[in-house]
């Protein structure tokens, strides 16, 4: 118990207090406060809100469409559809952005190859507010999908059948039963999509910076990157601003989910509208959307990793594996980044178990105000935008640590600690659902037989949580290996991550190398997700997001 409390304090409370304090002193001393009145801040704030709101709209349309189709109709291939639809969320945002840039505009090797490229000087349509909003929408649509699907899964077949038997038309059933039950999920999904859009860094960085469109996260990044430590006060103010917007979005989400209680209807198999002849149309529509938002950009990414120079169409004469050779066998930065990402991801994934297993046990066995408070504290760093978290950790660890005089800033350890903080909630979820599904009588029996706490932990509890712990390790690994926002602010010599390496290669004008590295990362993501899917039958329910 003290261990869990101590860990949560270090990873969540301390950095946030430090950030809040820096923001507050900036406000009272007036040194950083003036940044709030600069036109650049207003523009960034406006851009952030506009793109996040636009993105939320796109996410709502895509996510709700897929959720309704998968949860309520009799279309075929639901598992593979869900799996493919979840992919954009798992692919790093800067890779998504690169892929879409390579797909559209006069620059596209894919369009050039097909002879469809727009004429010289046509603007790249994605380098705009609506381009950013569109991609934010695609990136975060799975969040809406998950939230809505969870709500719809609770609609029982009996309720719908009863309504149909008493003569209700499908439209009335939809309006009077499905929609009211779906609304909390829609509101919650919209709130998460909005908050994620506010905090996204990869997409506005790749699409916005070339067009001089700043959002709050990219503004913070470029201030810190170009002016350094002198701007700590201003950066703390801007981070606090983002944190406030995110917090209000999260409150909205909580209210939506804590709303009315729908457990009135008897449980049973979940509802399925039979679409009849329309089924094939619906299936085609869903697959075409997936092809447009997922397959086409990824194909473009592959194409641009195979061309020898900018502006050259791809064909059998020009095709070249030079970019892959360069990043795999010549560039030391790729291997350094790969090594760092693998080390950070595995250390975070495995190390977090030491906190989440006892924390999960505590939170399920001991309910009450303290446990609730703890759960909220664990949730906060995950919900906050990465850039806010990174700034909080810079402020906390910029100076050498007291007592031991060791400096974390500029080493790989500050990134690791920030990852621990950011992914604690991700790691906890599977472990907690395993504890929740466990029959307490098992432990009771062991206790009555005289087994002490550690004995019970070792012989009864741990073997039962092991599959969930395995899933937790892979999930954290997957997300941490692709991370960009936190590491973009915290990296230094020799501590580049894969996300930073891709961003930096693109920035230095080597987008062929950036594309090649991105292709490899996407392959890694799909392989890890497939591994999770393969082990799905051993895992507790609700652990894999693309399954029910």
């Amino acid at each position, binding site marked *: 118990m003290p261990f869990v409390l101590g860990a949560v304090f270090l990873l969540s409370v301390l950095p946030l207090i430090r950030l809040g304090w820096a923001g507050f002193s900036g406000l009272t001393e007036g040194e950083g406060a003036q940044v709030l009145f600069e036109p650049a801040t207003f523009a960034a704030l406006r851009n952030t809100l506009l793109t996040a709101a636009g993105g939320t709209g796109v996410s709502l349309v895509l996510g709700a469409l897929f959720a309704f189709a998968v949860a309520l109709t009799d279309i075929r291939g639901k598992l593979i559809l869900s799996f493919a639809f979840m992919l954009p969320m798992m692919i790093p945002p800067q890779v998504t952005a690169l892929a879409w840039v390579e797909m559209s505009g006069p620059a596209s090797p894919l369009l050039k190859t097909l002879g469809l490229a727009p004429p010289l000087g*046509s603007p790249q349509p994605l380098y705009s507010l609506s381009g950013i909003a569109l991609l934010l929408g695609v990136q975060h649509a799975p969040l809406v999908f998950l939230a809505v699907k969870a709500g719809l899964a609770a609609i029982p077949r009996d309720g719908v059948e009863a309504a149909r038997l008493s003569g209700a038309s499908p439209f009335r059933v939809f309006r009077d039963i499905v929609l009211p039950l779906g609304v909390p999920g829609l509101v919650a999904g919209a709130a998460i999509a909005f908050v994620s859009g506010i905090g996204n860094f990869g997409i506005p960085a790749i699409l916005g910076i070339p*067009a001089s469109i700043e959002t709050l996260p990219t503004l913070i990044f470029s201030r810190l990157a170009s002016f*350094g430590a002198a701007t700590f006060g201003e950066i703390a103010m801007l981070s606090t601003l983002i944190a406030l917007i995110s917090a209000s979005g999260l409150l909205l989400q909580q209210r939506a989910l804590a709303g009315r209680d729908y457990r009135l209807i008897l449980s049973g198999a979940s509802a399925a509208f039979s679409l009849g002849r329309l089924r094939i149309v619906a299936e085609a529509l869903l697959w075409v959307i997936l092809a447009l938002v997922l397959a086409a950009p990824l194909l473009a990414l592959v194409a641009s990793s195979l061309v020898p120079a900018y502006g*050259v169409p791809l064909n059998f004469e020009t095709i070249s594996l030079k970019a892959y050779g360069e990043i795999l066998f010549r560039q030391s930065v790729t291997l*350094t980044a790969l090594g760092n990402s693998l080390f950070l991801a595995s250390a975070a994934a495995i190390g977090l178990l030491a906190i989440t297993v006892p924390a999960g046990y505590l939170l399920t066995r001991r309910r009450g105000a303290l446990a609730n408070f703890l759960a909220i504290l664990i949730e906060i760093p995950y919900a906050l935008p990465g850039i806010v978290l990174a700034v909080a950790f810079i402020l906390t660890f910029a100076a050498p640590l007291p007592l031991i005089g060791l400096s974390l800033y500029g080493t790989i350890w500050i990134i690791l600690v920030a990852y621990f903080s950011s992914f604690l909630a991700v790691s906890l979820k599977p472990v907690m659902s395993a504890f929740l599904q466990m029959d307490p009588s098992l432990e009771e029996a062991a206790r009555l037989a005289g087994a002490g706490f550690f004995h019970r932990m070792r012989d009864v509890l741990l073997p039962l949580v092991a599959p969930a712990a395995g899933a937790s390790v892979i999930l954290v690994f997957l997300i941490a290996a692709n991370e960009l926002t936190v590491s973009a602010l915290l990296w230094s010599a020799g501590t580049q991550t894969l996300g930073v390496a891709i961003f930096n290669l693109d920035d230095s004008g080597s987008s062929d190398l950036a594309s090649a590295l991105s292709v490899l990362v996407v392959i890694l993501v799909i392989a890890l997700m497939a591994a999770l899917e393969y082990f799905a039958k051993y895992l507790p329910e609700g652990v894999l997001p693309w399954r029910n």
Partner: protein
Amino acid sequence: MKPLLSAITAALVAGLLSTAAYAENLILYTSQPNEDAQATVDGFEAAHPGVEVEWVREGTTKIMAKLMAEIEAGNPVADVLLIADTVTMQRLKEAGELLAYKSPEAAAYDAALHDADGAYYSTKMITTGIIYNTSAPMKATGWQDLAKPQAKGLVTMPSPLTSGAALIHAQTLAGISGLGWDFYKALAENGATAAGGNGGVLKAVATGEKAYGMVVDFMAIREKARGAPVEFVFPAEGVSAVTEPVGILKTAKNAEAAKQFVDFLLSEEGQKLAVKMGYIPAREGVALPEGYPARETIKVLPVDAAAAVKNSEADLKTFSGIFGTN
């Protein structure tokens, strides 16, 4: 719990060992593009098999911000710096951050190309000129062409907030009569954009997103040799130039290897390597790479270095004011 704990310990030890290992190496902060940085490091390691180089690449201003933050945190990581311009080096020297080292190779160089105390040495000449896409309707020959109606909305340039070469370029043109900040205002009114580094400009023009750009010479000339549809022009009014100086930090943990690195860059072998990558060498008597006009025909515009050091902040503000936040 046991296998778990030992796994964590193993991971931590592996991490500690790898950070400890950096201390043996030479750490280079550079603003060269990744491929060139790797080639430079490969060449040096081949000449000095005992030394392993760990390197970081970012635009000059970003590298400097990182370095200054590290210095402030009391833990500068870099041993040696290879960045775009002497103005930034001069500022570091004045702050007392650079080690004075008299390289034996310096004798083969024009005295104007290095600091008299040996704080930094120019390694090559990088000029900024005009790049255009070969399918562009107008062939640009001078800076003023970029402000013409034919180039409306079709011009892009690197931002001084990212690139050291771009800052010197802007300061150079701003100091030339007939151009000046008015020229930049005219460009902005003509719809020109300024963001990111030289790499972004190259990409935008080569791929046809933009038709014209200001960019460093070697990127454009090299990409043309690879088959990209671009041309590079040394404008009639003249070009700006930076000299990519190298300097050793006073706090270098591996000063010996750092000195060897400086000597290598200045040596004939190091200069030929630069030529192979497509750069104009700084050393006298080394020929220019293919694709360049004769050295004496390149007209380099003068820049007042002392004023550039003093006015950098103000010039950055002026530039950002003209082109918006970036």
